[in-house]
């Protein structure tokens, strides 16, 4: 039931989209981005240590070296725990709601669930990002004060940023489920 497809993100890096069909009204989309590359980690560590060694050569103070080790370790931990997102999941359950979760490289998971009664629609939107225009999928939430208007926007797949062809796939499946819910 699960299908994997290769896509690219807005920077051209390969990402993987897997759709899991649990039932006609429950689907899960997982976008996994590339793993933390070992070369980059090595290069970063080497740069910091070389700089630290240069500073040590000038100052003859060993505290510089130990602090460099500390800084690299802490930096790696923080990066893995707070910055590097391994995969993002969108679980759409008809008439119940939509759950977004992102799993960090360290295994930390942050999840939020939006009830169907608060969701107005799921759309693909355009945004200006640095010097380019990108597309992104977002959930429009209802404004509690004004049922027709749009209260706020929750962007999806924020860290992996897939390209339009991938978004269209997810968008179509989501609309199928949302349409089913509305019809009944």
């Amino acid at each position: 039931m699960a299908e994997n497809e290769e896509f690219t993100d807005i920077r051209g890096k390969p990402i993987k989209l897997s759709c899991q069909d649990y039932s006609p009204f429950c689907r899960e989309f997982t976008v996994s981005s590339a793993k933390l590359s070992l070369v980059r980690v090595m290069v970063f560590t080497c740069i910091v240590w070389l700089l630290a060694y240069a500073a040590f050569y000038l100052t003859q103070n060993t505290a510089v070296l130990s602090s460099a080790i500390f800084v690299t370790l802490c930096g790696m931990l923080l990066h893995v725990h707070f910055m590097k997102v391994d995969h993002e999941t969108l679980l759409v359950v008809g008439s119940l709601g939509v759950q977004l979760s992102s799993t960090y490289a360290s295994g930390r998971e942050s999840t939020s669930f939006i009830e169907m009664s608060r969701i107005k629609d799921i759309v693909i939107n355009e945004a200006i990002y640095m010097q380019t225009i990108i597309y992104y999928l977002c959930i429009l939430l209802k404004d509690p004060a004004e049922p027709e208007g749009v209260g706020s926007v929750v962007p999806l797949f924020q860290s992996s940023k897939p390209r339009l062809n991938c978004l269209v796939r997810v968008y179509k499946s989501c609309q199928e489920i949302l349409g089913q819910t509305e019809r009944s």
Partner: protein
Amino acid sequence: MVLKIFFPRCCNMADSGLLVGRWIPGQDTAVVLAVVHYPFIPGQVKKYLSDLRSQIQVDLTVLGSWSLSKDGQKEMDSFLKDLSTIFPHSRWLQLSREPGKRGFACEVVCKNGHAPASDEEDKIIFVHYDQRKVMLSQLHPVLENGADVESSELRAVFHTVSRSEPLFLLDKYDDGPLKLTHWQSDGREASIIMELVKQASVPICMLLTMLVCWWKWLWSLRLLNIWPVCFISSKLSTCVQAGYRTDHFQTVFSTRKATTHMDFMRKANMFVSFFVDIALGLLLISWLYRENRISQLANTLVPAADHVAKELQELLEWLMGAPAGLKMNRALDEVLGRFFLYHIHLWISYIRLMSPFIEMILWYVGLSACLGLTFALSVLSDIVALLTFHIYCFYVYGARLYCLKIYGLTSLWRLFRGKKWNVLRQRVDSCSYDLDQLFLGTLLFTILLFLLPTTALYYLVFTLLRLLVVMFQGLIHLSVDFINSFPLFAMGLRICRPYRLAEGVKFCVLHEEPGAPLHLLMEINPLQCSTVLQCYRIETSGCSSRDSWLTLCKKLFVGELIYPWRQKSTKTD
């Protein structure tokens, strides 16, 4: 139409019986709360449910039947199905579970007696929830009034489960009229000490409230509200801290029950932070009053104050010469320098006079730490303020002189350009001056302008000193404020019982089989720590009124007095 059934995990393996729960109005959602087991008399079930309904204000009904197939119970199933004619309903759920299978089978029978069309069969979602966690958790953001509860489906589910607490209070040793399966404790635990504490808490609270009332009455006496006492006590941070603690005390020990969640959390936070504060204070005392540390402290304090005075004297002597190669106005420089030197002389003699008593004062003041670490810190801040009073005085003199000069210069500059400040209209008007006036004004302007660098230098040096002291005091105030406002209880709850404070829920798909209904597991998503801090901070006025850096710089430039930045609103100069 998708039917959602919230099913408690503890009833997964329950024996066959009737499902008791609630249909959420407006949604196709059923919350199952318990399973009633055979044998029962339908009339008794109805009576029990109507009793509960009036007690908890939630319309509990019989939702349908539950059957767990075992050998030789086929006739039981058909009996349970027949029960649908006895209990009033619009839809009747028939859940059944085969022992070998993981999923349930579900059939919905509508009122007119036959099962609906076949394509509806698979549109059923089972959401398994942990009854105990859902009952105890509190969804955020907290809604105080019950009116909005029905607006969201999840809130309605949480509300239903938490209101049904009396249903769960029956434990498995209770012999009620009915035999129920739901979340239940293994018998209620009771300890004599806890019961005694519960019994004693009301009189103790009343006594403490009375004491606080007396204390407040003592403070509100007319004698203590005359101007100087009032002013000084508003400036002493110990008094401010005492005021906070009295307020906290009154809130915590009031005999009124905290009805809403926020009230309860505020009380608990204050109580815990109060205790932690006192514990830290006692630790400090046990450290301070051992090995003669007080006298050591006193022996270092007096020479330190002496040393500061000496340093100041040297600084003044440096300023009276040619500081940093600057050429000052000699006469004014000498006058100012002598004036400040005389002050330092007074200060040193004052310290000498005080020095025999300092140890005793410290000994008694240190006792205030048993009221809490915050008190000790506030006392420290006050002591610092008193010991650096000379720096404050210098700063005030310097600032006043500088301020006068600046004002004089601005008004004379206006005269220079043939203008004046119109007080009535609050604006600058043009004005024709006499020749004498112009001459005198220009002369004064020149004198003031040439004397400005000397005063500005003194002002600069003493402002820097004052800022140093203010920064130290600000650090102490920040730490006191941190202890006062940190929601310890909420944080502890977040760490030890994450499900108590819920931000929302998260679902995961348990297992899926083609043709069988979907099974989801509902877990509670705990609140983020930053949100806990934001939501449950105990309010203090300390952080609210603070100058922005720009206004501070402006004040410094014009020469207005900067008091410790807090309590800015009370200070008008």
